[in-house]
């Protein structure tokens, strides 16, 4: 290229013109974002700060000075910090082993699968398995060790459960970063006389610091927002904000108090989101150049270190596999811990009593999936390729529901759509909308990322060969962003099957969800059906993810830009 490109402004869209189709799409998206993102949040504030139409901070102050709630706030931060640290450490362990451990292919796919399992599971799975293992009648605490009167509830078990559930996020964040660190750089340091440990300490680790910070913040946010795990495992000893907000609303019917609590949650969540998005993610040293390292990359692990890493990873993987095996086992016996006779009665129960929840969940997922995928691709395309006023703002607003803890979104929807002018409570639409605007952003990010990788010369080449804007979009751009569409579909589907934090506020007699049913089962202590539901969800999600994976391969020509992960972003 000549330097003329150096003085060019950021690559603009080709053939910029006032396009009525684009204008209409932008307007429609703004209306939807206004209705399903801005309006509910505004109503949340209004409800929090008014009492029968007059401004008052009394309700907020009452909640915020309550010692119990203040403790919940600090607990939330403590838990999020610990989960962030623990999850990042475990995630780094796995990522480093995968990137540098010279694992054979089959072992890598096992690692990938065991890491993926917690990501596609309903929210209570590890929590249930914890109770099965370490509860008063737990397989390990009672049967194996003979301990009596053990309490599983509290910080430690919540921390362990969340760390196990969320460390895959750290793994997925760190692995590409570690893989992208040119091992020749490490080899260089080694050749300058540094020991392997010194190379790791002075070269590899510093290069991975932005990735570590990023992983920590993502885990912090995930833990802060997690509602299911502390609800099951936190117990009375360890209240956190999302569960307190939930109890305030469902137990005390205090919407204003719930709104105030969720607002308190909003502040740290927002800070973490902004830090992650605008500070850490701009500090990456590693850019993926596509230039492969040499044929003989530096072997950065000594045999002993490699062995130790493999052992550590294997231990974690074994725990995960054990948890899931236990879940499956629990779904197939009368009552785990008491009566281990084989039975299908739990499955019979979920396919009779629970059938409505299964059907509702699948119907809602079936609507949310294509809508969410379309929404993601459309908004991503407009933001990345079209110039219109408020482009950056639209991108930011579209991320809000995704970045906020589900509890806030759920309570905001509950407040906003409970009364006229827009009454949606009790409908399936409110749940579908919640999923589309909360999980569609993954598709937005995937679309933007893909479009950034697609050189604009491709569109220019099409134009040069005589194709107009419409033909170029249909024949070149659209096929190339199809993977992002499928990624968006996949994430919306997975979350439609597994989410609970927002939608627990939105279910009704008319429409309910499997996850809510699982929670009901757990609170009624019928853990068998809960386990059976969980197994069902994992199976459905795996099947659908596999189908989407096949479709992805089908639509992806060799050499097209690959989508690395369904769960990326």
């Amino acid at each position, binding site marked *: *290229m*000549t*330097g*003329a*490109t*150096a*003085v*060019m*402004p950021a690559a603009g869209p*080709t*053939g910029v013109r006032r396009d009525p189709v684009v204008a209409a799409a932008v307007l429609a998206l703004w209306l939807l974002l206004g209705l399903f993102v801005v309006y509910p949040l505004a109503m949340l504030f209004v409800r929090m700060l008014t009492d029968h139409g007059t401004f008052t901070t009394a309700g907020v102050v009452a909640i915020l000075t309550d010692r119990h709630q203040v403790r919940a706030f600090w607990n939330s931060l403590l838990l999020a910090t610990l989960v962030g640290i623990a999850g990042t450490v475990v995630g780094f362990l796995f990522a480093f082993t995968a990137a540098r451990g010279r694992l054979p292919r089959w072992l890598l796919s096992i690692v990938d699968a065991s890491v993926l399992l917690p990501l596609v599971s309903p929210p209570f799975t590890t929590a249930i398995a914890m109770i099965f293992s370490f509860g008063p009648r737990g397989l390990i605490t009672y049967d194996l060790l003979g301990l009596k009167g053990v309490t599983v509830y509290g910080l430690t078990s919540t921390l362990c459960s969340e760390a196990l559930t969320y460390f895959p996020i750290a793994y997925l964040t760190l692995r590409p970063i570690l893989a992208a660190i040119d091992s020749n750089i490490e080899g260089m340091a080694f050749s300058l006389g540094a020991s392997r440990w010194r190379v790791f300490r002075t070269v590899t680790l510093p290069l991975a610091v932005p990735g570590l910070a990023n992983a920590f913040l993502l885990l912090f946010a995930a833990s802060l927002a997690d509602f299911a795990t502390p609800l099951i495992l936190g117990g009375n000893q360890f209240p956190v904000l999302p569960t307190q907000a939930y109890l305030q609303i469902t137990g005390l019917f205090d919407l204003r108090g719930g709104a105030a609590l969720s607002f308190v949650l909003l502040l740290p969540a927002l800070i973490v989101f902004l830090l992650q998005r605008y500070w850490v993610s701009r500090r990456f040293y590693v850019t993926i150049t596509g230039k492969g390292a040499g044929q003989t990359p530096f072997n950065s692990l000594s045999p002993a270190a490699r062995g130790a890493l493999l052992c550590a990873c294997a231990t974690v993987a074994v725990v995960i596999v054990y948890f899931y095996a236990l879940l499956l086992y629990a779904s197939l016996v009368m009552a785990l811990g008491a009566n281990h006779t084989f039975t299908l009665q739990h499955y019979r129960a979920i396919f009779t009593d629970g059938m409505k929840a299964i059907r509702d969940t699948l119907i809602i997922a079936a609507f949310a999936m294509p809508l969410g995928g379309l929404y993601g691709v459309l908004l991503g395309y407009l933001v990345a390729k079209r110039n219109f006023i408020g482009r950056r703002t639209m991108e930011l607003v579209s991320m809000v529901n995704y970045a906020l803890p589900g509890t806030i979104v759920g309570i905001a929807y509950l407040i906003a759509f409970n009364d006229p002018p827009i009454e949606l409570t009790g409908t399936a639409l409110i749940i579908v909308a919640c999923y589309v605007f909360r999980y569609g952003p993954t598709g937005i990010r995937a679309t933007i990322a893909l479009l950034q990788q697609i*050189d604009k*010369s*491709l569109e*220019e*080449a*099409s*134009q*040069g*060969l*005589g*194709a*107009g804007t419409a*033909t170029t979009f249909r*024949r*070149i751009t659209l*096929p*190339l962003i199809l993977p992002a569409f499928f990624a968006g579909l996949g994430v919306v589907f997975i979350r439609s099957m597994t989410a609970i934090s927002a939608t627990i506020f939105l279910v009704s007699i008319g429409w309910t969800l499997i996850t809510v049913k699982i929670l009901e089962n757990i609170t009624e202590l019928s853990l068998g059906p809960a386990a059976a539901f969980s197994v069902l969800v994992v199976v459905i999600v795996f099947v659908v993810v596999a189908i989407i994976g096949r479709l992805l391969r089908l639509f*992806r*020509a*060799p*050499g*097209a*830009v690959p989508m690395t992960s369904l769960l990326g972003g």
Partner: protein
Amino acid sequence: MTAESIGVEVDRISKRYAHRVKGEVYAARAVVLNVRPGAFLTLLGPSGCGKTTTLRMIAGYEMPDAGRIRFGGQDVTTEPANRRNIGFVFQNYALFPHLSIFDNVAYGLNVRKVPAAEVRQRVGEVLSLVGLAGYEGQFSGQLSGGEQQRVALARAIVIRPRVLLFDEPLSNLDAKLRVQMRHEIRDLQRRLAITTVYVTHDQEEAMAVSDRIAVMNEGSVVQEGSAEDLYHRPASQFVAQFVGRVNLVAARVLTVAGDAVSVAALGTTIGARAGRAGLAPGDAVRLVVRPESIVIAPAGGADGSLQATVTARTFLGEKIEYLLRCAGETLQVVRYDAGPGAAMPEGSNVTVRFAADAVTVLPEVAAKGTSDA
């Protein structure tokens, strides 16, 4: 294969950009080019000289802020790229990764609604022409760089474009392939007689492929001519330095007689050709001497020729390069007649003589822009 060749006229086109540091910058400033029908013109220049911007304006990917562009006399200045009927070969080839080689090449024909049977026939023909018959079902990711280059070429010529445009098409290939491909491109262009504009920063490549070369610097065409013109009669120090290697020796004009100039340089008087009109006695000038135009011989003959010392000597097979120290100046010299005994060792004293008519004089003031060349 193509219809009648047409000429391309670029009439004082300009393009400005807002630059973060420098403010408003001209990427192209009143560029004038005239490509005869069927001719091969190369835009040659360093990074940032405006050659790619000029090419993209000819293609219709950028619109000039001023000036006109005419294809065969017809004004196309405001036509977008998809209505200009051009063939464009990108530096990164820009093959569509989701389409097979066949579909890549057929793309422009399908856009033009050419009947399927004819598409098949023409794609087959053009793929044979570039030596890729049988590659129809492959995808770009499975091809080597050279093969991708050929597909890009096939895709550009299959639509029988009025003008063929190349943007540094060989810069991603290794040196050997680059030499081979430039012969193929030249050969194909001659056979098809498509009017062609080619952009490169590699002067050797430019010389190898072009009928004419336009050297650009800082947004303007500084000299246009055949490769011989540019090499032997550079109009500026910039062109002298950019096209081939050169010695620029400080000198002062003694006498001017039409084209013939006599200058004081290297402690002696040297006869030279004026590269520019308007030189006057007393002007500070530069002698422009190509390394192969300097004749050296072992010292000994006392014929009043210049004396110099060999400070470095590099044996390169078919030639030997010398660095000489001569009256306080450093001279680069290349000798091809290097028989086994002809080499002069480092530290030896030699006599220096400039080949007749090989020395051009350019004014010192033209030095602008040479420092970064």
